[in-house]
């Protein structure tokens, strides 16, 4: 296997490091270590990365919060219950349908929705759903994109033609429009491909839809890189030694795509979370009563005048999670792709 730091680092890394003012000697350091060192120096990116970890940690703790603090679950209706706040009994949902607002106590911390469900509990469970979909869709996107991108770039010819046209077809649709179309179509009958059968209500549906929709956005740059890499000397050397196509692709070319993959991953996760929220908001993603930040925003829209927190709180969580991933992703890109930073500096 040959990783190809030489060409990139020979030109880009010294410039970038010097541009950061250190004049530090970096000779002898592996590219990954250099990148991590750059990332460590980017305090903003690390702070937002930490924010994402905190959000994810809170969401993972949802069952504990629900059971130990809120004493309910994400689905339980409390339409006729009363709770005591400061010695006063209050309806969770009034006879005229007004849900209780934030109590700032363990139960109904952020209030209740129209079914008397605890908003705080659903917010955390919704976060689990949104993050789970984002974090599941992104690796699937990466996997599909790398496979098709490598096949197209390495084999060129008719393989490239077919794959590229297929990617262009997907790309030609606006992301949300395609997502809504697929989500709506699959919601009723589910997905049946041979022995694989997925129920229309399953969260696997939005995962698959999001994963497929974003494939062209990564597959095309991968294909471009592979087209360049396949002409490199180390690939020719491997070929001369008798290596087959598969071996060259996975042993010689794939390792050289690693920085691209690492740079794209947080950005794809952020986009996947955002798309999941958009699809769920439009009724084509996560199916109620399962909470996700998108479905919670959608459910709150009708009550935005009297209960703005129903929409604002999941909206803020969504913004924070996506912002954290984007800023962290930018930091990763800056660390792994110094040329991008140089270009920015030259503007």
């Amino acid at each position, binding site marked *: 296997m040959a990783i190809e730091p030489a060409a990139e680092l020979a030109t880009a890394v010294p410039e970038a490091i010097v541009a950061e003012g250190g004049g530090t000697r970096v000779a002898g350091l592996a590219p990954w270590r250099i990148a991590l060192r750059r990332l460590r120096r980017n305090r903003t990116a690390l702070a937002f990365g930490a924010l994402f970890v905190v959000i994810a940690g809170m969401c993972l703790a949802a069952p504990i919060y629900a059971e130990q603090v809120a004493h309910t679950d994400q689905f339980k209706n409390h339409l*006729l219950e009363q709770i005591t706040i400061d010695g006063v009994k209050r309806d969770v949902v009034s006879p005229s349908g007004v849900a209780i607002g934030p109590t700032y106590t363990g139960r109904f911390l952020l209030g209740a929705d129209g079914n008397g469900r605890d908003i705080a509990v659903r917010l955390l469970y919704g976060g689990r759903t949104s993050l789970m979909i984002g974090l599941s869709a992104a690796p699937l996107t990466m996997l599909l994109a790398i496979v098709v991108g490598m096949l197209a770039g390495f084999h060129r010819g008719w393989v490239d033609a077919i794959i590229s046209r297929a990617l262009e077809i997907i790309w030609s649709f606006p992301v949300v429009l395609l997502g809504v179309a697929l989500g709506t179509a699959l919601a009723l009958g589910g997905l049946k491909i041979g022995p694989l059968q997925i129920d229309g209500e399953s969260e696997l549906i939005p995962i698959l839809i999001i994963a497929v929709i974003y494939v062209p956005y990564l597959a095309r740059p991968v294909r471009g890189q592979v087209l360049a890499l396949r002409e490199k000397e180390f690939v020719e050397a491997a070929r001369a030694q008798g290596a087959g196509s598969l071996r060259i692709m996975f042993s010689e070319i794939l390792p050289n795509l690693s920085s691209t993959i690492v740079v794209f991953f947080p950005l794809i996760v952020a986009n996947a979370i955002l798309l999941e929220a958009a699809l769920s908001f439009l009724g084509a993603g996560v199916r109620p009563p399962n909470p996700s930040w998108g479905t919670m925003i959608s459910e709150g829209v009708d009550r935005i005048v009297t209960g703005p927190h129903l929409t604002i709180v999941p909206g803020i969580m969504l913004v924070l999670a996506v912002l954290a991933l984007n800023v962290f992703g930018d930091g990763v890109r800056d660390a792994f792709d110094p040329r991008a930073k140089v270009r920015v500096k030259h503007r």
Partner: protein
Amino acid sequence: MRKQASALAVATLVAIGAIGVSACGSDDKSSSGGGSTSGGEAKKGGSIRIGSVLPDSYDPVLLQTIQGNQALQLVYTGLVTYKHVEGAAGAELIPGLAEALPTISADRKTYTFKLRPNLKYSVGSAVKASDFEHTIKRLLFLGGPFSSFSTVIKGAVEYQKAEKADADISGITADDATGEIKVELTAPDGKFLFAIALVSAAPTPAAKSPFKRSNSMPGLGPYTIDIKNPTREFVLTKTPGFDIPGIANGNIDTITVVKETVTKMTQDVIDNKLDYMTEDPTGGLLPEVKAKYSNRFRMDPNPPNTYWFFMNETLKPFDKLEARQAVNYAIDSRALQRIFGGRLQPSCNFLPPAYARIGYKKIDPCPYGDPAGPPNLAKARELVEKSGYKGMSVTVWGNTKDPRPAIVDYLRDTLNEIGFKAKTKLLDQQVYFGTIGTKKTNAQIGFTDWYQDFPHPADFIEPNLSAKAVESTPTFNFQFKSNPKIDAGLKKLGGEADPATVADEWAELDRAIIEDANGAVYGNELASSFFSERMDFENCSGVHPVYRSDWSLFCLK
């Protein structure tokens, strides 16, 4: 009809009792000048703006929604029509373009109408007897939502099958010279006259009414319509010289109807930028509207409606009576009332309370406990256990229109409490009823409702519960099975011209539906009327049992 496809329609306390009342005899003083008000004298003139989601169609034979019916009933008048007065009396049939209610033959199969003399459409052409046959042909040819009500006319089914616009309907004979229209039915049908009073059967000039969708057909009514933009705005203007005894000619000179979202129209009525809204204030704003603007807001059970959970009796677990009864025992209407924002009247009758004169008799005690009281969950669990289906997976179906997802989620939670393993499935409201009404969908249980098409008990029972309804695809009989008692009752009572004469038997049928748990009824929704400060809310609220609100009765302060 389903609410979203909502309807014409409405309540009736008095309905048919008034069939014998002649148009002239039923005129009240205000009707010739502007319709009956609640009390004081209605002020004439002025312009108002109404917020609406707009009609689903401007073609009278194709419209289906109450928003369409509210507007177009002012533009197109039928041979018979509903009285333009507030309250229950509005469900009375009165002569429209016909000079009197029809004479009905002894075998109740032939109806004879006679047109009023010298009637002219808004464009100046004379109203002809043959225009009625042309309208029924358009209705059948274009397959309008209410066309099924006309298939009882002799030759109507054959006309539909022929698929030729100019084919003949043998059961309709029209004489333009005398203005006489004779309609023969294949069998006595007590619903027929009520269906003929719908806007979809109002005559329009044959020469200007093509056998395709049209937005520009002239009619004869108290107002004429000017569609500025079919998806944005239309204007109703008083028809000069309109004067048909008994039919209100409108107080307001110009009514501009604009499309807005429900949230915006609510805010605009609050701010007096709109004078009325055709929808109920949006969920979040309703409590505020009720509390702060009670002097211009009211709620009424119009149009008559029933909300219930259907249970597919051909599928497990609801093929067993115990399972269906368990659901009935478990439903808590107090909880559902909160979901409806307080706009639900708990009930266990299938027929709405507005049908007191024609078949509603409060089932008391309800077999499953007081509908306004707590549920009997212990009994429900016991019945589920007894059914042998404890722990069975159940999918609760519903649609996305607010507050239906909340209703469906409530049922899911309740079914889980009594021993089932429930999950929900929500579909877009546009495809919902068609999907669950298809047998292969295998919808087990879910949300459904019914809004009156016309004031007759059969309008509720026949499409939703009869064997005849199961035969059509998609069907509204989501039980996919009929109760023999219901079919026998419909056969016996359906032909009666006046359901009031057999009201007790309709009530027995209603009781049988509930006792056999052919659904889990939980109540009737109240509709709201919300006006600006400019409107004379006290005297001219226009609440009407068929049109929900009759705009010809509106007036300014």
